[in-house]
């Protein structure tokens, strides 16, 4: 290792070669690339599981999978999409962009960065091993839903639950280290003159997200540790026979789980806040209100967890508190949506692929936000809970919210990463197919939920058939449209028959990252730039 370091001193742009470049990488760009590819692969695995679920639900009755297998598919789809796709993609984008945006040479803790990434393939190897063993007939994979409520995951959990627990521990360690790294980078490596209130919004949203991660990932680690000791060491945290309480599980889990949903959306808010001003050719409207709104959302996320538990028999006072606190979150979120729209107002708009995805994000995320408000109303929630209405709600905020934000970010920044422009017409095809199919896929689920179709069941009553068939058609179109995205990314990365990108890439782009050449050099700012 020391030999390599010495070499670096001599040749500043020398890259290590071969597999060692990736295994031992301490470079923020290489690690960011690995995070993004990892997330992309997991996206296709999790998506394939979703397509099996949708194929099963194309018509009533059991077609392809047994109910036991169906439960495993929904569980792993949820876990992979949350922990394997959205979160690593955000960390990958942070790795790539945060140092370049704040004028830093690299992340503050490059070796820890390497470790945080390389824990992930191990964690997901374990989780996917449980599915592989299930397919080979060696016992069930985790089958209790991604929320792994006790006692389904304790008393009645399959043997593979221990794989799941260890996997969650490892991805938790990875996320915590990633978050520490991002905070240390932002606090210590900003260029001279880059005060906190001059940081790009993407950096701000990640700064706040990193604090959320540090606050709640240990609680998740705690709850799976309690599960582990309940399962094997005779404790009774969640077992009423020994004086525990299964409802305690839900309190501890959602104390983690609600901030987690903001962990999965705040960085997307940041990406959108970079893209909209660029393609509106205006400064972002209400910069400081964006920062305060993000902080308020983060704070409120800690005091609303029990809105996931309205039907557990809480007293009216508790339900009212959690209902009002939840509705309060609509205020800062509304400020953000207002600011994005105001940024576009009277701007010189152009509609390249990143901007198309950003506008779709604003529109569709807001629909998801509205259904969230409906679910926040306790009496209404008694009807909606555990139906497809909830499924529609969180897929609107996570797929057309978080995932569209990530796709917008990839199209926005890939010219900077690779030095090549992506294929615009393929991008536009990808966008329109995705945005239409996602609504065909998830919008009918609102009606299914309101009509009473329960979640997580492989069969359904006849009257739900048409809407389910629409959703399945939408799902397959959406799933296969993502292959266009994959092809476009590979084509851009290989750089054949594509346009070269300039340093600034986009006419309206502002910020330190656009002052670097495209592709961005292996080491970003070897001397710190001066920010006015």
């Amino acid at each position, binding site marked *: 290792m020391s030999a*390599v*370091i*010495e*070499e*670096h*001193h001599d040749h500043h742009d020398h890259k290590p070669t071969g597999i060692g470049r990736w295994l031992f990488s*301490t*470079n923020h760009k290489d690690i960011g690339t690995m995070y993004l590819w990892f997330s992309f692969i997991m996206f296709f695995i999790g998506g394939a599981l979703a397509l099996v679920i949708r194929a099963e639900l194309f018509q009533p009755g059991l077609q392809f999978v047994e109910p036991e297998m169906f439960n495993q598919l929904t569980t792993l789809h949820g876990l992979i999409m949350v922990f394997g796709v959205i979160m690593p993609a955000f960390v990958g984008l942070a790795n790539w962009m945060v140092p370049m945006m704040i004028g830093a*040479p*690299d992340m*503050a*803790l*490059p*070796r*820890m960065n390497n470790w945080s990434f390389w824990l992930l393939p191990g964690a997901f190897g374990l989780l996917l091993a449980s599915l592989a063993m299930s397919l080979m007939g060696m016992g069930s994979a985790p089958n209790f839903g991604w929320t792994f409520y006790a006692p389904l995951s304790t008393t009645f959990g399959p043997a593979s639950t221990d794989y799941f627990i260890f996997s969650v521990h490892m991805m938790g360690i990875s996320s*915590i280290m990633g978050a*520490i790294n991002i*905070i*240390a980078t932002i*606090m*210590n490596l*900003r*260029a*001279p*003159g*880059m*005060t906190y209130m001059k940081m790009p919004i993407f950096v701000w949203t990640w700064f706040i997200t990193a604090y959320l991660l*540090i*606050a709640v*990932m*240990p*609680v*998740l*680690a*705690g*709850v799976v540790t*309690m599960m582990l000791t309940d399962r094997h060491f*005779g404790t*009774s*945290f969640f*077992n*009423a*026979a*020994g*004086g525990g*309480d299964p*409802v*305690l599980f839900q*309190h*501890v889990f959602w*104390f*983690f789980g609600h901030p987690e949903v903001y962990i999965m959306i705040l960085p997307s808010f940041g990406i959108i806040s970079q893209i909209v001003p660029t393609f509106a050719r205006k400064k972002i409207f209400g910069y400081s209100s964006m920062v305060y709104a993000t902080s308020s959302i983060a704070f409120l996320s800690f005091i609303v967890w029990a809105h996931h538990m309205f039907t557990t*028999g*809480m*007293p009216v006072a*508790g339900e009212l508190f959690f209902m009002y606190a939840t509705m309060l979150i609509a205020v800062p979120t509304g400020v953000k949506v207002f600011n994005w729209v105001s940024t576009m107002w009277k701007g010189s708009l152009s509609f390249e692929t990143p901007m198309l995805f950003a506008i779709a994000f604003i529109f569709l995320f807001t629909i998801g936000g509205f259904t969230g408000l409906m679910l926040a109303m306790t009496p209404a929630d008694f009807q909606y809970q555990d139906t497809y209405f909830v499924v529609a709600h969180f897929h609107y905020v996570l797929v057309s919210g978080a995932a569209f934000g990530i796709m917008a970010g990839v199209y926005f920044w890939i010219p900077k990463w690779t030095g090549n422009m992506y294929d615009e017409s393929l991008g536009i095809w990808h966008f329109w197919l995705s945005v239409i199919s996602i609504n065909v896929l998830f919008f009918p689920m609102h009606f299914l939920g309101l009509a009473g179709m329960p979640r997580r069941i492989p069969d359904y009553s006849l009257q739900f058939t048409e809407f389910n068939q629409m959703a399945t058609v939408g799902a397959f179109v959406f799933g296969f449209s993502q292959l266009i995205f994959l092809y476009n990314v590979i084509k851009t990365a290989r750089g054949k028959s594509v346009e070269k990108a300039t340093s600034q890439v986009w006419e309206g782009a502002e910020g330190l990252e656009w002052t670097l050449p495209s592709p961005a050099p292996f*080491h970003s*700012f*070897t001397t*710190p730039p001066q920010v006015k």
Partner: protein
Amino acid sequence: MDIALTGTVPQLYNPSAGEISERLGTIMSAPPKQNHGNDANKKVIIQLMFVVVGMFGFGFALVPLYDVFCDLTGLNGKTGGQVVMPAEMKVDSSREITVEFMASLNETMPWSFYPDVKSVQVHPGQPMKISYYVKNDTNNEIVGQAIPSLAPGLAAPYFHKTECFCFTEQILKAGEEKHMPVVFFIDPTIPKDVNVLTLSYTFFIKPGSEAAASLTDNSKHQDL
């Protein structure tokens, strides 16, 4: 661990201590300090690790906090532990409250369990003794634990037990049966709108004694 993690790879950008402190001074808009970059990172790591460890502990602290919260508010229908009947308890003979009794078994529990009376009428402040019947239907000794619950939960703080089989584990030998007493009284300050209370017990197999219970399934069928 800190040393290993903060050992930043020096080839990327390795400014002198002076340069860093100058930068830090500008960045943090604070008086320039003699602070090395690695020290600044180490400080951040140590502070954040405290948060991480603290929040891991907080997850576990939620367990007792949750119980304390339930005890204070009487939510969740949890009744309190054993109390001593106050010497001067005024009986409010103007009111009568119906107390109903329920018994249930956790799914694997191979016992028979039911209250000897279905319900009683009681004045607030008046001590009342009832009993539950339990029988071990198997050929094995089984340790059980009864968990009480009271509905409506908001009335739980007014319901006091001076004697209950739920305070301790119950050990029943093969085929053993018994009548277990419960002595309770209702606080006369109980809200006026509460006229019916339901006390229910669920018998669980003591964790760790499941093996004995699972052996019994066959023997039970043989008996039949």
